[in-house]
């Protein structure tokens, strides 16, 4: 049974149809990647899944809100708030190791790292929604994130992650969905099936190029 499901969901933002009749699901113990160019509607889809946006049409089915973990990117962190105080809102464990300085004075990568760590810190994650999580992370932090996603998958969490970092997606995802102009633009790409990470990466790039018309 899926942990989260969108059924024929559309979302109009002003006059722009940001999501157009999308049906998508993510099951427990699965990592699904969302791939698409900027402005394709990936963030809107994730925010609909998270319950932060109401769809204009269609249905959203998701696990209990207490099991949802969402991170929308370092730009959504309040700059004046101390990183440690922010972390404590989600988990007491590990908070003392986090810098007490406000987010506004930290580097982009540090904000991103702390933001993701805080978002997924509390136990009991059932549906994890991450928007461009590798953005700004250094290689160590990228590896930490990929391992964290794999661990959460092993614990049964359903994860939906959007990214432009095709190689990172290929390394952790079970399947990828391509989004273009608010629609699912290509058949699901299965990232399992015994392919190496390089082969999966090549497959994802090929599909990306195809939906973009070879640009």
């Amino acid at each position, binding site marked *: 049974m899926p942990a989260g499901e969108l059924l024929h969901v559309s979302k109009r933002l002003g006059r722009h149809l940001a999501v157009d009749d999308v049906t998508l699901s993510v099951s427990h113990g699965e990592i699904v990647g969302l791939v698409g160019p900027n402005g394709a509607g990936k*963030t809107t889809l994730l925010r609909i899944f998270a319950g*932060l*946006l109401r769809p204009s049409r269609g249905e959203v089915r998701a696990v209990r809100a*207490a099991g949802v973990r969402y991170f929308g990117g370092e730009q959504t962190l309040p700059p004046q*708030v101390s990183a440690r105080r922010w972390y404590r809102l*989600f988990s007491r464990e590990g908070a003392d190791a986090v810098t007490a300085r406000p987010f506004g004075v930290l580097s982009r990568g540090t904000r991103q790292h702390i933001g993701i760590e805080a978002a997924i810190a509390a136990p009991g994650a059932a549906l994890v929604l991450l928007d461009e999580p590798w953005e700004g992370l250094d290689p160590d932090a990228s590896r930490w994130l990929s391992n964290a996603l794999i661990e959460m998958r092993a614990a049964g969490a359903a994860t939906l992650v959007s990214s432009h970092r095709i190689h990172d997606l290929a390394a952790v995802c079970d399947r990828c969905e391509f989004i273009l102009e608010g629609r699912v633009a290509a058949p699901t790409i299965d990232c399992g099936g015994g392919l190496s990470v390089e082969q999966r990466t090549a497959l994802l790039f090929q599909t990306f190029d195809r939906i973009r018309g070879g640009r």
Partner: protein
Amino acid sequence: MRTCPLRFFWTLMRPSVSTSAIVCVLLAFGVYLEGTYADGFDQVVAIALFLQLFSASTGYRDRLRRGHFDPILIRRPGRWRVALAHWTASIALGVLVWVALGVIDFVGRQGHWPTPFTAAGVAVMLYVSTMVWMVSLPLTRYAGAVLWLAILFALASTQYLQALRQAFSPGADTATGVLHSAISALVCPIFLLLDPPATSAAILGVALLATAFVWIVGAAMIGRFDGRLAET
């Protein structure tokens, strides 16, 4: 770990160092006046009310669209609960200062009931805080304070403020008198502090009803705001 909305909003809105310094100076000024010229203590109360205009104008939609409230909103607490928590966190500092000033005045002047603790004092603090909170919700921080002050300056420059002052009678007992006084007080709430003990229950009732109405409008706004992110 479940974070309650009030704790979340308080973490986001806790006073900065400069705000805390202003509060300390104000309280110190209150203590000083209490010791040297206790009859002038209500000046500090008026300054506290003026500062609350800005302190409670926290804004909502602007920060909502920057994604600052995402972690609490994904837990899908009722929108009324979110509104109550946001309102409480927004007005908390001003209310604490108000109470502290009341305590200073109570301790300093035996046999005098402090203005912040009078019914009129409570009504004016709640009304002012709630009004600027609500006006700021769809706008930016401080918008409620700036707009209200702009209106008062406009009224003062066209003599309408003076007319409102003349229409305000704290002890009004006729329906027309109460209505005129209440309208005057809702536009310029400081009138309620001119003679707090003498302010009629009817005028205070209208002020409190207006406060409740404004709060409900604010809460309804929060329920309708869309969590669409602003373009960055």
